[in-house]
């Protein structure tokens, strides 16, 4: 059972800490100019961080205890391909979900 004091310390601490992380640059730098080399790196934040976040889950999902799962791997490949080809987010999500459920059903 989670201790109530711990819980509220975590909720408030995590809330404040997360806000700080989200505000640190937009809030403190504001509209002061940032150097070109930094901007050049920041342009690749999203395309680097999100794939890094999901890659281990795609290859070694927790749900299968870290074993490679053909259904999840195929779903990831279909989502990415449909997304790249159509640039349609919802189409990519639905194709990925359909692949995942289809293969989980077929492969039992």
């Amino acid at each position: 059972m989670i201790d109530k004091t711990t819980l509220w310390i975590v909720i408030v601490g995590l809330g404040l800490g997360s806000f700080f992380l989200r505000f640190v640059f937009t809030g403190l730098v504001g509209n002061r100019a940032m150097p070109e080399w930094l901007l050049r790196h920041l342009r690749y934040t999203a395309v680097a961080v999100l794939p890094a976040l999901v890659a281990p889950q795609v290859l070694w999902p927790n749900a299968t205890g870290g074993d490679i799962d053909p259904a999840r791997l195929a779903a990831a490949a279909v989502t990415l391909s449909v997304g790249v080809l159509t640039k349609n987010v919802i189409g990519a999500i639905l194709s990925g979900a359909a692949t995942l459920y289809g293969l989980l059903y077929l492969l039992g």
Partner: protein
Amino acid sequence: MTITTTKSAYLKGIADGAPFILVIIPFAALFGLLATEAGLSVIEALSFSVVVIAGAAQFTALQLMQEEAPTIIVLASALAVNLRMAMYSASLTPWIGGAPLWQRALAAYLTVDQSYVIATAQYEKEPKMTIPQRMGYFFGAVTPIVPLWYIFTFIGAYLGAQVPDGWALDFAIPITFLAMIAPMFRTLAHVVAALVAVVVSLFATEVPYSLGVIVAGLIGMMAGAEVERWLNRRAGGPI
């Protein structure tokens, strides 16, 4: 649809944020369920989602608290999971740094993976948008997402039922993130940044507190920036 007013920017934001409704509903409900399973009351689960709004960090904190990890470790780990938000903040600054402070503070509270990604994608696509239009777009993008994050945390916690493993909800987030990223591979530099980040993250899974993601992200960003410089040089442009 080209954005001409703050209102049309807000509406376009809503339209572009809407697909994520599909994912936010099950994900928020799952957090509510797991939170009540861990012994949190409905109000506590809801407060967690309202105060923090960060799915992955909330799941991390919940799991570590259940394992009775020391409070400081719970906070450090969950904040490490959220460290990418600081990178998002830096990346948003050139676009919205000129907005009024209260708007920047509100946008900071509302910065989640989805709002960050679609907003920066839009800003890059239409660089001529004014700052009020950019803020309008950002707030539009979170309008269909964040309220549902609260509401379905509440519903999940209130119903408190078990989610069958067969629903494979663990994979809702990877699919969403891949779908969000796919349209962003516009240049070779973007592709290289992603590939390098993926390879590094696969080698860095043992790094504690999810810091491997941050390291992988930073190295991927450096790779992207270098390729951009190389492409510019080849095109005879400025370095």
